[in-house]
């Protein structure tokens, strides 16, 4: 009994000085630093259920300029290029475009390479065991959601260089839903020629900063009432626009808790009786809720139960 009380008191005391002394957090910061300052050429695969996506990831630091290139190798492909704080997306189905941001929105959550401190309100950082990943000694770091409404994220970091070797979205039952595994990484002294070539290329000028337009957009268009979201999520943007693929009009809301993004779409219902339900691919869930006079769809890397609860909480404006 005494032992249990002792452990309990330790657990309760831990948050008090977690900020500076959490080794898991320190490791993540080291990883972010390594990812930003090293020249490397890596390949990784993302396994989502029964599908698999291979990527190549190059990064270089040339003087004070960061160069990064992430490319999806299968199918029609997707190329993402970053020069410092400008990211350009090349997609098969549309014109390339640039965004003013200092990180690529790839399969790895961007916040991990940045300020993870702001996640600590809703996630715990826990050190896991050691193992061997991609032929290297690796240390597991677990980012655990404080409530059951989100997935956990586990990362295996190279014990030597702190670079990422493997990561996974893990549900509350401990099952890995979506895994990312490096198959090869080489760290070099000199930046790759491919990346240096980028400096001589012209890229589309970035779209006007979306950040400035968001506050007006919030008030102007939609006022659906979104009754429930897990704590920590805040509204980043809302507007009414047409979807690219099928030209359907939608009221759109983008929420984020700093780690995962959730999109909420409110649309005119499709004809016919259709049941509400969820689809999932890896960690991504799509929940389609048929609410009679309107359809609500929720998309994001969240459990299906959470997506369902969000979708069902959307109500008509008063």
């Amino acid at each position, binding site marked *: 009994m005494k032992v249990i009380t002792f452990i309990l008191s330790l657990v309760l005391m831990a948050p008090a000085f977690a900020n500076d002394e959490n080794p898991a957090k320190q490791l993540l910061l080291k990883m972010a630093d390594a990812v930003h300052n090293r020249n490397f050429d890596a390949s990784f695969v993302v396994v*989502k*259920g*029964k599908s698999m996506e291979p990527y190549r990831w190059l990064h270089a630091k040339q003087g004070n300029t960061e160069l990064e*290139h992430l490319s999806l190798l299968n*199918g029609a492909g997707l*190329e993402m*290029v970053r020069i410092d704080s400008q990211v350009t997306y*090349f*997609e*098969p*189905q*549309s*014109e*390339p475009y640039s*965004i003013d*941001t200092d990180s690529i*929105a790839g399969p790895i959550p*961007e916040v991990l390479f940045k300020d993870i401190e*702001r996640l600590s309100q809703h996630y715990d950082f826990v050190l896991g065991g050691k193992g061997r990943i991609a032929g290297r000694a690796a240390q597991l770091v677990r980012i655990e959601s404080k409530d059951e409404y989100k997935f956990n994220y586990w990362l295996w970091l190279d014990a030597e260089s702190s670079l990422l070797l493997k990561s996974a979205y893990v*549900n*509350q039952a401990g*099952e890995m839903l979506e895994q990312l595994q490096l198959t090869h990484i080489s760290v070099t002294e000199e930046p790759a020629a*491919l990346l240096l*070539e*980028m400096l001589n*290329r012209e890229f589309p000028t970035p779209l006007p900063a*979306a*950040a400035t337009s*968001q506050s007006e957009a919030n008030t102007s268009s939609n006022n659906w009432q979104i009754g429930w979201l897990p704590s920590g999520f*805040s509204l980043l*943007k809302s507007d009414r626009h047409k*979807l690219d*693929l*099928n030209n*359907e009009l*939608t009221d*759109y809301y*983008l929420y*984020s808790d*700093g780690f995962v*993004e959730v*999109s909420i*779409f409110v649309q005119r219902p*499709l*004809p*016919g009786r*259709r049941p*509400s*339900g*969820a*689809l*999932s*691919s890896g960690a*991504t869930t*799509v929940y*389609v809720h048929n609410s009679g006079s309107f359809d609500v769809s929720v*998309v*994001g890397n969240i459990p299906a*139960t959470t997506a*369902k609860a969000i979708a069902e909480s959307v109500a008509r404006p008063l």
Partner: protein
Amino acid sequence: MTKAHVNKLDNQHLSALLDGEQSLTDEVIAQQDAATLGRYALIGDVMRAESEDAFVFDISDSVAKALESEPVYADFTQKESQTAAIAATGTDNVVAFNWRKPVAQLAIAASVAMFAIVGIQTLPQGENSPNNEIPMLQTTPVTGMASPVSYSSEPALQNAEQGLRELQQQRIGALVLEHQRQARVAYSLEKAHTEAQAEEEKN
């Protein structure tokens, strides 16, 4: 069933085969004439934007040709000299980046791509998954699992059902793509958001 109806079903078969959604059986191949196969292969290539200069008009022809020139693939020295030549031209050594590729593909190509994703998403989840109480949608009907309506002998009703399903599939594809795109600006928005909040707290 009318003759036309039968043919349509056959072609669906063939299309699925080319897209790698169905396994290759001699039977299926034997049923199809070479012209249809070639046409479908071409459609597939164009949709995936794989044919930049060389359009494959007849797959059986090119297969035959490829077989004739098979030794080339085993001739590594030749391959090396080719790549060396490319590298020597300087600008071409960035072939890994395809940003010079024309981006004039049809929008339908994307919806087809999303279609495939949706197909995967609908695969039943593990039996012991904690989300069992959540209904999982089945957008691509699997034999034996389709709703009874699909078995209707009334072609009109069947077509309507099919159309509706496609409509929903398209929508879900569009939503997933839109989410991916919007998520790209999320990080910078969020940063601006927190910075603005910090500003406010300071004042």
